[in-house]
């Protein structure tokens, strides 16, 4: 198999694009695709400061690496979730990547934000799935860090497979409000929110893993222990089996949704009416979702201590 650009021996085969590349040409292809996504969706310019949420995984580090290479103004943000050895390894990978390239990286750790706020404890005290608390904590701390740091944009490493799986779940259950919000650019609905973007939304998981490998990025290969049995992984498996028979299906599913269907679902943006009485971030009620969750953890934790 030969590289479609230079005819050297190919090392990367992309059936979804009906093409193959050598190492150098694949890196060029990947970076150009990300740049085109940024420009097509007007995500941000080279003058705007971008906060990149990095988990230590392949997608976020591939994204950060690409943005830096393309000359965008970036800073990394790592949020430690307190999930034992997995979080410790993730933080080490994120720190090592940043240190080796002399890039600025902010570190936040849930366990340092308050007692019982690490994901395992939060799940235990609220008696809910860990992923529920994880999403709420991430949204709050990413929003807060972007606001406090004066960033124009928050970029995350969600890839094509994430977007396709999310879209399949939203369509299966006709989640109209979620379909309205499914877009690679979320414009702020409150002055304290920043623009949220997903520059890898047209880039598959295989492509970001391949890019990370070929660029020598040492990322966390292990999966979050809480992801076993996750619904999103069931959707991803279904989509990958479809993709194997019909290459390009995932990209068509997401891009055609954005082109043809998303405008039908997108209504007036749902703007928070006020600000949280506790943290001051935008809120639909007296307390924002994050502070309601923290208050619940504090209450249940106090009850547990009183009964012990």
């Amino acid at each position, binding site marked *: *198999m030969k590289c479609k650009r230079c005819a050297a021996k190919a090392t990367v085969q992309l*059936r979804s694009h009906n093409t193959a590349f050598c190492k150098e040409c694949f890196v060029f292809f990947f970076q150009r695709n990300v740049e085109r996504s940024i420009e097509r969706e007007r995500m941000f310019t080279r003058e705007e400061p971008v906060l990149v949420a990095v988990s230590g995984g392949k997608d976020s580090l591939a994204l950060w690496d690409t943005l830096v290479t393309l000359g965008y103004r970036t800073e990394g943000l790592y949020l430690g979730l307190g999930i034992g050895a997995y979080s410790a390894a993730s933080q080490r990978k994120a720190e090592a990547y940043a240190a080796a390239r002399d890039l600025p990286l902010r570190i936040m750790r849930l366990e340092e934000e308050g007692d019982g706020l690490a994901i395992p404890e939060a799940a235990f005290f609220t008696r809910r799935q860990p*992923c*529920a608390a994880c999403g709420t904590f991430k949204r709050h701390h990413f929003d807060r860090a972007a606001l406090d740091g004066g960033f124009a944009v928050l970029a995350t490493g969600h890839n094509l497979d994430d977007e396709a799986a999310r879209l399949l779940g939203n369509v299966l259950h006709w989640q109209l409000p979620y379909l309205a919000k499914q877009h690679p650019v979320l414009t702020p609905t409150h002055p304290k929110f920043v623009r949220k973007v997903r520059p890898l939304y047209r880039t598959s998981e*295989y492509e970001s*893993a391949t890019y990370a490998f070929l660029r020598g990025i040492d990322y966390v*290969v292990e999966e979050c222990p809480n992801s076993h*049995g996750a619904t*999103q992984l069931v959707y991803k498996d279904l989509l990958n089996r479809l*993709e194997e028979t019909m290459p390009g299906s995932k990209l068509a599913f997401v891009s055609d949704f954005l082109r043809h269907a998303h405008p039908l679902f997108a209504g007036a943006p749902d703007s928070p009416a006020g600000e949280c009485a506790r943290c001051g971030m935008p809120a639909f009620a007296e307390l924002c979702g994050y502070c309601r969750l923290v208050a619940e953890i504090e209450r249940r934790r106090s009850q547990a201590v009183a009964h012990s």
Partner: protein
Amino acid sequence: MHVRLEPQGRQLTIAGRRRVGDLVRSLGLVTGTVMVIRGDDLLTDDDMVEDDEAIELRAVISGGAR
């Protein structure tokens, strides 16, 4: 050949010379969900792996909320 599956950390020994695409499918894996790594190189479906070689099949699927 020696095959290491990551992130599971499983080791397999498979006899004979195999084409990468055939090997991946014979293990019940979906093409495009694993990187096939030999040393510092990635392999494509039509590459051959010899009997005395060692490769890694590294899953690329991650994430997932309940």
